[in-house]
């Protein structure tokens, strides 16, 4: 009963918030979008001020009275100062941001102001709080978001909160940047020889994929997340030269399509993880590749944009709306 009521109130509030503070890419904080309310400490402070008033009245002590009035007045001044601290602060954040499952997403927010702004706490509904002590002029901030599932992560409104100057008030704004973060399947390494050579007639181009049986050592490359630990070049790591993986020459051929069918018989999620790894591999080799996922088909291509397109397709595959609400 109470829960339902609360939910309804929340819903009403959210609808009002959508009207009051609509989606945008840049927000400048003003009395339109700033909220202010005493903290628990603020209320405790008020109780103490009231106690001082009683003390002063009962002792008919004018100095204590004066002090209680000064502290009450100070409460108001603090409220205004707390408001002016955030007022005028501009926040800008890109709509999208990508990452892999299991990794932290670090969407960034650019804060800009024409006066120093203190004690800024940025957070999403379910994220840890990212704290910035002082913003002078312009500063970038990153918020850490946990990812657990592939798909689109909508973290909701970004909360900007400050308790400057005395923690008596919390001043906050809830800004809707319409954030939609794409969480790619975590890359899972797979050896090339496990792949089935799928050469079907209707495949266009890059059909002549040949695989030499022997793996021939080719080069060392920087470690990529998801790569097998067995491939790490321990010698180099021990010498402190960095984390590398050994790579062997496979004749991957000119170009090919990556698809679910070429993978061994494992769960769909695992398959997507393998594909995620393969996309990264091909991308790093600067090879030409495409992606076929039952109905979706991405033409053979290369480059950063192409990689992201493929990974996005993997992230969204077989999800009704492709959306995770967090």
């Amino acid at each position, binding site marked *: 009963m109470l829960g339902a009521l609360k939910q309804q109130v929340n819903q009403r509030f959210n609808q009002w918030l959508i009207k009051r503070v609509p989606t945008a890419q840049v927000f400048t904080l003003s009395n339109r979008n700033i909220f202010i309310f005493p903290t628990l400490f603020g209320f405790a402070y008020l109780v103490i001020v009231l*106690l001082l008033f009683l003390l002063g009245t009962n002792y008919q002590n*004018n100095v204590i009275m*004066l002090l209680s009035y000064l502290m009450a*007045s100070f409460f108001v*001044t603090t409220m*205004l100062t707390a408001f002016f601290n955030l007022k005028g602060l501009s926040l800008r954040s890109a709509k999208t941001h990508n990452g892999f499952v299991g990794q932290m997403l670090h969407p960034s927010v650019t804060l800009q102001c024409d006066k120093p702004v203190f004690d800024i706490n940025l957070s999403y509904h379910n994220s840890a709080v990212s704290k910035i002590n002082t913003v002078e002029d312009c500063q970038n901030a990153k918020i850490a978001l946990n990812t657990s599932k592939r798909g689109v992560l909508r973290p909701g409104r970004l909360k900007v909160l400050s308790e400057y*100057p005395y923690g008596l008030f919390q001043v906050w704004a809830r800004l809707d940047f319409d954030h939609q973060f794409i969480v790619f399947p975590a890359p899972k390494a797979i050896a090339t020889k496990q792949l089935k050579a799928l050469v079907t007639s209707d495949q266009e181009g890059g059909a002549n994929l040949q695989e030499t049986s022997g793996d021939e050592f080719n080069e060392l490359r920087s470690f990529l997340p998801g790569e097998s630990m067995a491939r790490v070049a321990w010698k180099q790591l021990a010498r402190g030269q960095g984390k590398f993986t050994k790579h062997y020459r496979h004749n991957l051929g000119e170009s090919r399509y990556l698809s679910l069918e070429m993978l061994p018989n494992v769960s769909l999620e695992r398959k997507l993880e393998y594909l995620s790894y393969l996309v990264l591999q091909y991308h790093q080799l600067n090879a030409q590749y495409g992606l076929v996922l039952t109905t979706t088909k991405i033409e053979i291509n290369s480059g950063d944009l192409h990689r992201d397109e493929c990974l996005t397709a993997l992230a969204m595959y077989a999800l009704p709306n492709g959306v995770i609400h967090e």
Partner: protein
Amino acid sequence: MSETKPFLLNKSLHLHLLLVQLSTVALFANELTAWMLAIIALSFLWQFTQLAVPKRTRQHHSVSTPKLVTVLFALAGAGVIVVNSKSLGLLLAMVHLICFAYGIKSLEIKSRKDFYIIILIGLFLHACAFIFIQSIWYALVVLTVILLNLALLYRIFSVNVAHLKSYLSSLKLLAFSVPFAVALFVFFPRLSPFWQVPLANTAKTGLGSDVQPGDIAKLALSDALAFRVEFAGKAPSKSQMYWRAMTMSYYDGKKWSRNNGNRLPFYLMQKPNINYLSGDTYQYQVMAEASNRSWLFSLDTARLDNNKITQLADFSLISDKPITKTVNYQVVSFANAGKELNLANRAKRFYLRIPEDSNPKLQRLGQELRQRFNDKQQIIDHVLNQFRQQPYFYTLEPPVLVDNSLDQFYFDTQTGFCEHYASTFAFLMRAAGIPARLVTGYLGGEYNQQGNYYSIYQYDAHAWTEVWLEGQGWVSVDPTSAVSPERVSDDMSNALRQQRVNIAGAFSWQAFSTNALIAKLKMQIEAIDYQWNRLVLSYTVEKQTEFLKTLLGQGRLWKAALVMLLTFVLVVGLLWYRDLRPKQLNRRSNWQLQFDKLFIQLSKIGITREPSQLPLQMINDIEKVNRSLAVDYQQLCLNYERLSYSQLNAKDNMAIAKQFIEQCKKFNKQLKRL
């Protein structure tokens, strides 16, 4: 949400907290018992050593106290409070408890909540300090401690901001809070006390209810203020300023007393009987300091209209409650009023009573005088003449009398302070059949030019006598005026002043204030304190009603509300305006200005910088002029780039900027030499 996070104070903040706590507890140094002070000091010392000794195992500088230590502190403090609770009284026991909690709470700061509690208890204690002292200087000290407390809180929310700024910002915010606070103080309706509160049983000061030889001489060593008087219109001459506190009519052979045990003399509760005659009237306001006693002060034959102060039959004023804080009252006095022209026989007998066996020599002298002179006035004159002509001395350090024998004083030592003379005189008068009593109070006062008022200090304490004469009523007689006329005309003779300095020690206001400039400064400081007393401390419910009535007239309640609202709007507007003001954010820093100067110098020798040119690109031009200059220039440019483009922390930035400015100056010098 922040409450859930672990909260750790760094070393600097914890030291700041210790400073706040130390100064807060110091405000109660007079109220707390030595044991409690010791325990709290020990708690601070423990925290300080924890902070000062670096621990390798400790990751943070915050203090984590072993349970045992906390428990020991708690037990010790509780023990002290329980043991002393009887003697402390309720108020001081509470103060002990709060101070103690405040002192040891910082042993365990685990969360932000704990920290907030310390801040709030601190604030409460700062207000409590005013229960005991309310002077403006003390108020300023407390305000400083409050500022320290607020700055500490401020630093939590503005990390990395310069230490000084936390004080300045807090001070600014406090200053912005003053107008609205003053408006509330003046216009917000005063309320009567809601319930009875325990009063501090602090030491009583000033005149006591009995006098034995040596008492007033002791009081004369005190520099404390007794009360202040502001005359509306003319003031009597200093030698007429006999401020009456009480009369003493009981003599038990050793001392004169006001009461017999706890009882007031029967007739004192009657209405005073004054015949107002023509003559000078003085209208004045008395502002008495807290003495924790009931008696108040006025010139003789005062008339006042105050429901909290009663005038007794001996014309002394008495407050219905002990004076625990400054009180303020209006009095009118009549210089030539007849005091109790008719005295009942019973009262006459009462004022002639002396113990039969005390001071036999004086009793005999009294009887002799009664037989020798027909007129009572002649007796009085004779005795005063004796004081004048015989070798009587007036001194702060009279020889000790055996059993307070007035005989010994009058016939042997002949050396004493006002109470010796007054006691002896009153005794002698009674022995000679003249009703007499001792009067204690203060004589004279120090005029403060800046404030146009008189300050009466404890060292002005005085004792004189009153004798009752047929047809004249009570007549004041001051035997001191016969012995040491300058004591009456001046505040205190030079010899006496020197004596005070000798007794009180090398440092004393009296010795100090002989310097004219310092004396003037002292007057100025006291004038400020007086205004504080007049305007703030004595702004009572009645005063407020009266003030608002004259200021606002009809409908004063809503008008007062309007004034408060306007002040509020004014402050909000002021802050809003402050925010809107254009900010000079891109102000060029010192090193940039120095660099600008360098280019001005360069342009003088024909090397100008295009707006698109980077500083380093100009090195070729400089090299053409001088090679070694170019080398210097290159080094200087390296620093310029570091200052301009790398993210430096404040400390490094300052060091490099300093170096850079030095380099620029050196470069400019060399350039000039070319």
